[in-house]
């Protein structure tokens, strides 16, 4: 999927890889970037999902896994976009600075059904812990998703519907 062709307001079903990361993981990633250290995941061209899932129930691939409030990640986002991040999934509005950076680096901000973690867990087909295990639900998980419902909230031209 070419993210740059998406328009604000588009509904899409995304299939592919996404990485969970929220507050503490963002802090750690941005500290590493500032110190020019190697990141535990290659974020270039990737999509980050602002999500801290519940534990995974026995026999299930994924627990409840809805989006968390994106604005808390605003202060870290321009740096991550500069480093090559291409997409973010969350809920709620973004700051002016983030929207400018999204436009500058041709990225996309998606929103998904907020407060619907049980429903969204059905679209996750694989989950793997990749970094920051000690952070518990705030660790970085690599998720394979199928037909994950997304709405384009800010497109690569900086147009926003939120």
């Amino acid at each position, binding site marked *: 999927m070419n993210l740059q062709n998406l328009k604000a307001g588009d509904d899409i079903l995304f299939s592919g890889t996404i990485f969970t990361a929220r507050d503490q993981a963002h802090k750690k990633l941005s500290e590493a970037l500032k110190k020019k250290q190697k990141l535990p995941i290659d974020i270039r061209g990737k999509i980050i999902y602002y999500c801290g899932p*519940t534990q995974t129930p026995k026999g299930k691939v994924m627990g409840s896994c809805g989006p968390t*409030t994106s604005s808390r990640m605003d202060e870290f986002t321009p740096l991550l976009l500069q480093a090559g991040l291409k997409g973010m999934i969350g809920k709620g509005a973004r700051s002016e600075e983030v929207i400018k950076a999204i436009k500058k680096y041709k990225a996309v901000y998606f929103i998904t*059904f907020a407060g619907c*973690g*049980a*429903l969204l867990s059905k679209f996750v087909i694989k989950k793997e812990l990749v970094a920051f295990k000690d952070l518990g639900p705030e660790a970085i998980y690599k998720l394979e998703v199928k037909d994950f419902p997304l*709405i384009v909230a800010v497109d690569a031209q900086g147009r926003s519907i939120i």
Partner: protein
Amino acid sequence: MREISADKIKKIVSELCLQANFVLRPDVLCMLKQSFRKETDKTARRILGAIIENSSIAKANKLAICQDTGLPGVFVELGQDVRVKGDLKKAINQGVVLGYRKGYLRNSVVSDPLFRGKPQFGPAIIHMDIVTGNKIKLTVLPKGFGCENKTQLKMFKPTQGIDIIKDFVVSAVKSAGADACPPYVVGVGIGGSADYSVLMAKKALLRKLQASKSKFRILELELFNRINKLNIGPMGLGGKATCLAVNIEAYPTHIAGLPVAVNISCHALRSATKVI
């Protein structure tokens, strides 16, 4: 004097944690369905449909309605003619850990607010009230922090009238915007002291939505209508459903003051109660 064992309290708290997180309150679900019926905006209808579907999936599969299973709040009304055999607070916290572990809920609590640390299941925030009688009423409120972060408190002057309070409540919802999972339930606490008004605003969320018995029914409905004209809508994408209800609690206050607190809940307002 009636005796209730701490073990029994632990067991019931653990069960309430599961019920609250898996089964959406009937009054909340009812208001969501009503909002869905009233909504004309296509996107808003789709989102409300997903929210309602989510509650069915959660219940049927024993999955948390929302991954943010909250900083567990436990409200205790302890009858003064009850003797708890054992350690009551310890039992409540153990019950929370037991329930959260059993339900594969989220460990969202860090032991140190500044230095954070590894997330745990507890401790809970416990509010204890001594009441008459020989029963114990336990309520678990696993409230997420996306909406808790939008809490506001304002210490008004005693001469400031009701209009400014109305504007304050509406502006608190406006500033929450799309962030805290609208449609919201808006808890308002008027009077008391600073701390007490915030507690009342939260306790207001425990009251049945759109209950006609409230003393502040007219004010609640007026605020409900004003908030639903903000066009924030589900997920902040516009629509009629910005709030499901406004619940107001009030208490006597000081001649020099008029505290007002707003505690917003996301649409996934979860709580479960049991009287023993």
